[in-house]
């Protein structure tokens, strides 16, 4: 089991563009959470997906949206990119309801120019 995988590893975009990040959860996990980690900061919760629905959302604008597929993989979409969206985006998966330990992926580093 490769654990949680994320793609791409790095991405460069310009302001105003849109980006899609992808996450495949650890085998046996059905819950996916997304976090944004700005440089020098701890991860901040964006939202969590379970049974293909957004179950909870952090303090992020509607420009941040997501999706979960029947195979439990997930996408994070960010529209109208701002310079401040530059960060490491982490995906975490967990089994059942998300109360179990969350396992993190390696992250996607997004740079907005």
């Amino acid at each position, binding site marked *: 089991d490769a654990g949680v995988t994320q793609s791409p590893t790095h991405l460069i975009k310009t302001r105003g563009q849109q980006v899609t990040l992808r996450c495949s959860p650890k085998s046996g996990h059905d819950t996916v959470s997304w976090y944004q980690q700005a440089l020098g900061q*701890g991860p901040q919760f964006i939202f969590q997906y379970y049974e293909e629905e957004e179950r909870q959302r952090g303090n992020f604008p509607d420009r941040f949206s997501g999706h979960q597929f029947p195979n439990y993989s997930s996408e994070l979409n960010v529209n109208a990119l701002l310079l401040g969206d530059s960060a490491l985006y982490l995906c975490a998966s967990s089994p059942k309801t998300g109360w179990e330990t969350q396992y993190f992926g390696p992250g996607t580093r997004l740079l907005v120019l």
Partner: protein
Amino acid sequence: AQRVTQPEKLLSVFKGAPVELKCNYSYSGSPELFWYVQYSRQRLQLLLRHISRESIKGFTADLNKGETSFHLKKPFAQEEDSAMYYCAQRADAGGTSYGKLTFGQGTILTVHP
């Protein structure tokens, strides 16, 4: 709002010395507390969670509800303990936070030979 505070951004000790990484939380209920570690060029991984009361790699952490603290301790630091450490909390089942983790800003621990 939940908040996790790690007052030290940097902590340096010598090999064999005791180490304590401080963490304070703000949630008034019964939170679940975690320590995550990120070694150089590796993904974020769980070090320990307070409900399991395990000692991982010689680290322990005690939840002090009176002081709202969850400090991480190790009696004899090793060079391989050098890493970024994050304290995180998750609200209890009485809340609606499901699996959301709230992280502190992290402490970089450097263990000198």
